[in-house]
C-alpha cells in the first residue's frame, strides 16, 4: 500500500501542473466566474449589513445615544438629574450627557395637526450626545435661553419630500407659528426656529424645545424623563452599565439596543431575507461551480482513464481534481473580495443607496465574508469531487475509448 503522503504528493503535483501549465484562459475564466459567484453571494449581505449598521448609527446619533438612564419603574421623573450626571461624568469613556424631558404633544398648523413626541433639552448638553443640532436644513438650532421657539423634524414640517408627507403639517417653514397642546392640556404657540433632517424617518418625527420652556409648561424643576449618555465606543455598553451601578446610580440604566425596537425588527427581517438570499446564492454558486468543474473534468475523462490504466490510483486522480477546484474557489474568493473592496465599496461610498434609515453603503462583515468563502470553497470541493468520482467509477476502457 502506498502511504497517504505519497498519494497527496502525487495529487498535489498533478493539480499544480494542471493549474500552472493548463489552459490559462480557462483558469482565468473559472476564477472570474467563482469571483462573480462570491460577489453575488456577498452583495446582498453587505447591503443588509450596511442597512443594519446605518440604522444603528442613526439610533445612536439621532435618538438615544449609547446609554439611556430612566426613572425607576414606579416614578415618572428622575429627581435631581444633575446629581446623577455628576456621578458618571468622570467615568473614562463617557464623553457627554444630556438630561431631558420627553412628552407627547399635538402640534397644529393651520388646518393640519398631528401627535408627535417632543424632547425638551439643554441645547449645550444635547450637542454632546446627539448629531441632530448639526443637521438643520433651514433656520437654527435652539439656544439655552430660548422661549417660545421650537425645532421640528422634516417629517413634521412637511413639504420637504419626506416619506410621511400625508401626516405632516403640510409645509411649515421657519418663522411660521405652530400651536402645541401638551398632554396636561396646556396650549402654547411656538415660532418654528429651525427644521432638521437626519435622513432617518424615526428621528425626523421629533420636535425639540428648551428645558426652560417645558419646565414652565409642566410647572416642575430639576427633573428629567431620561438622561442620554454618550460613550466613545460602541458595543461596550454593558461595561458602562456595571460601572454606573457601582458608582451608585439607582435609576434604570439601559443600552441603546433596548430602545432600538425598530432596529431589532429590521434586523430580524433582514436576517430572514439574508438567509433566504444566501441560500439561493449558495445554490446558484454551487451549481455554477459544479458546471464549470464538471465541464473541465469531463473533457479530461480520457486523460483520467489513461492515468488509471498506467496504475495511478483513482483516489489520487479524484483528489487532484478536488485540489484544483479548491484552488480555483480560493482564488475566486480573493478576486471576489478584491472586486468588493476595490470597486463596489468605493462606488457605494461615493453613491450611497437611500433608505428610510438614511444613506446606506456596503458593509463587509468579516464573519459573513469568512462564512461565505468557506461555503463556496466547500461547494467547489464537492463540485470537483462528484464528476471525477463518477468518471473514476466507469471502466478504464470506457473512459479512454468510450463516447
Amino acid at each position, binding site marked *: 500500500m502506498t502511504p497517504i503522503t505519497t498519494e497527496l504528493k502525487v495529487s498535489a503535483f498533478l493539480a499544480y501542473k494542471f493549474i500552472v501549465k493548463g489552459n490559462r484562459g480557462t483558469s482565468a475564466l473559472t476564477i472570474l466566474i467563482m469571483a462573480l459567484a462570491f460577489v453575488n453571494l456577498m452583495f446582498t449581505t453587505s447591503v443588509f449589513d450596511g442597512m443594519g449598521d446605518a440604522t444603528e448609527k442613526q439610533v445612536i446619533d439621532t435618538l438615544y445615544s449609547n446609554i439611556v438612564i430612566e426613572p425607576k419603574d414606579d416614578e415618572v421623573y428622575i429627581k435631581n438629574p444633575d446629581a446623577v450626571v455628576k456621578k458618571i461624568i468622570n467615568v473614562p469613556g463617557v464623553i457627554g450627557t444630556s438630561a431631558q424631558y420627553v412628552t407627547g404633544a399635538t402640534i397644529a398648523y393651520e388646518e393640519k395637526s398631528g401627535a408627535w413626541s417632543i424632547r425638551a433639552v439643554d441645547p449645550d448638553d444635547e450637542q454632546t450626545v446627539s448629531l441632530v443640532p448639526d443637521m438643520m436644513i433651514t433656520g437654527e438650532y435652539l439656544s439655552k435661553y430660548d422661549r417660545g421657539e421650537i425645532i421640528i423634524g422634516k417629517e413634521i414640517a412637511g413639504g420637504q419630500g419626506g416619506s410621511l408627507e400625508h401626516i405632516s403639517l403640510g409645509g411649515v417653514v421657519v418663522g411660521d407659528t405652530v400651536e402645541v397642546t401638551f398632554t396636561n392640556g396646556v396650549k402654547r404657540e411656538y415660532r418654528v426656529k429651525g427644521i432638521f433632517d437626519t435622513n432617518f424617518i424615526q428621528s425626523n418625527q421629533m420636535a425639540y424645545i428648551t428645558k426652560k420652556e417645558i419646565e414652565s409648561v409642566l410647572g416642575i424643576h430639576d427633573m428629567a424623563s431620561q438622561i442620554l449618555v454618550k460613550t466613545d465606543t460602541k458595543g461596550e455598553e454593558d461595561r458602562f452599565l456595571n460601572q454606573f451601578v457601582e458608582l451608585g446610580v439607582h435609576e434604570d440604566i439601559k443600552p441603546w439596543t433596548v430602545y432600538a425596537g425598530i432596529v431589532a425588527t429590521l434586523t430580524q427581517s433582514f436576517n430572514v431575507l439574508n438567509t433566504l438570499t444566501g441560500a439561493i446564492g449558495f445554490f446558484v454558486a454551487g451549481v455554477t461551480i459544479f458546471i464549470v468543474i464538471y465541464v473541465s473534468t469531463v473533457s479530461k475523462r480520457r486523460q483520467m482513464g489513461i492515468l488509471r490504466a498506467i*496504475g495511478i*490510483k483513482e483516489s489520487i486522480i479524484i483528489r487532484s481534481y478536488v485540489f484544483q477546484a479548491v484552488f480555483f474557489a480560493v482564488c475566486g474568493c480573493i478576486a471576489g473580495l478584491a472586486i468588493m473592496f476595490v470597486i463596489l465599496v468605493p462606488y457605494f461610498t461615493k453613491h450611497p443607496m437611500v433608505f428610510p434609515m438614511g444613506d446606506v453603503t456596503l458593509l463587509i462583515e468579516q464573519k459573513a465574508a469568512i462564512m461565505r468563502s468557506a461555503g463556496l470553497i466547500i461547494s467547489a470541493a464537492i463540485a470537483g469531487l462528484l464528476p471525477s468520482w463518477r468518471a473514476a467509477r466507469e471502466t478504464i476502457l470506457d473512459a479512454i475509448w468510450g463516447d
Partner: protein
Amino acid sequence: MKQNKQDTIIATRNISRAYTMGNMQVTALNHVTINIRRGEFAAIMGKSGSGKSTLLHQLGLLDTPTEGEIIIDGAEISGLSESEQTIFRLKKFGYVFQEYAILPELTALENVYLPAMALGLSQDECVTKGMDALEKVGLAERSDHRPREMSGGEQQRVAIARALINKPKILFADEPTANLDSISSKQILELFRALNQDTGQTILMVTHELEDADLVDRVIWLADGKVMEREE
C-alpha cells in the same frame, strides 16, 4: 515441460470476452489459450475487429474476461481486487497506447517519472530513473520539453519511457505505430527490438503491419476472436 512452465510469464486458459449489445451477443474473444514466455517479444496480429485489442486488454488487466483464467507469474489473477489490480499494473506492467497518451501539462521527464512518483520514490530517484528511461528511448536532451513541442514519434517514445520507468515485467503496446509516419514507426520498432535484446524486456505488441512480423520472436494470429498460432 517443467522448464517451459517456469519460463511462462503470462498465460491464459480458455478466456472469452463477450459483449452484449441490446439482444445481440458479440464474442470478441473465443476460448483463447496462449502462453507468453519471459523475455519474449510477441506480436498479436490479425484483421481489424479480430479481437487483438480485446486480448491485450485482458492480459494487461484493463478488462475482465467473461470466461476463463489468466495466470501471471504463476498466480491466478481473477481473485485480485480492483485496487490490487491497480497496484499490479503500476508495479508490473507498462503500457503504450496507439494515441500517445501523455499529459500535455507535464514535461517529458515529469510524464515519465509519474508512475515512479506514485510508487513513493523520492524526487531525486524519480529524476534519476526518469532520465535513465528517457536515455533508453533517446530523448534525454528533450526532458524539459512539453508534449506539444514534440513530434508524434517523440511523444510515443516518451510514452514508452514512462512504460519502462518501474521496470515492468511486461510491456504492452497496442498498435503503437499506427499514428506515425514510416520513419518514426521504424524507430519505435527498433527501440522495442533493442529493449528486448539488451534487457530481456518481455513485450506484447498488437500490430496490423505485416512487415512487423519479421522483427518479433513470435506472432499470435487472431481471427474472429480465435487464435491461429503459427510458430516460426
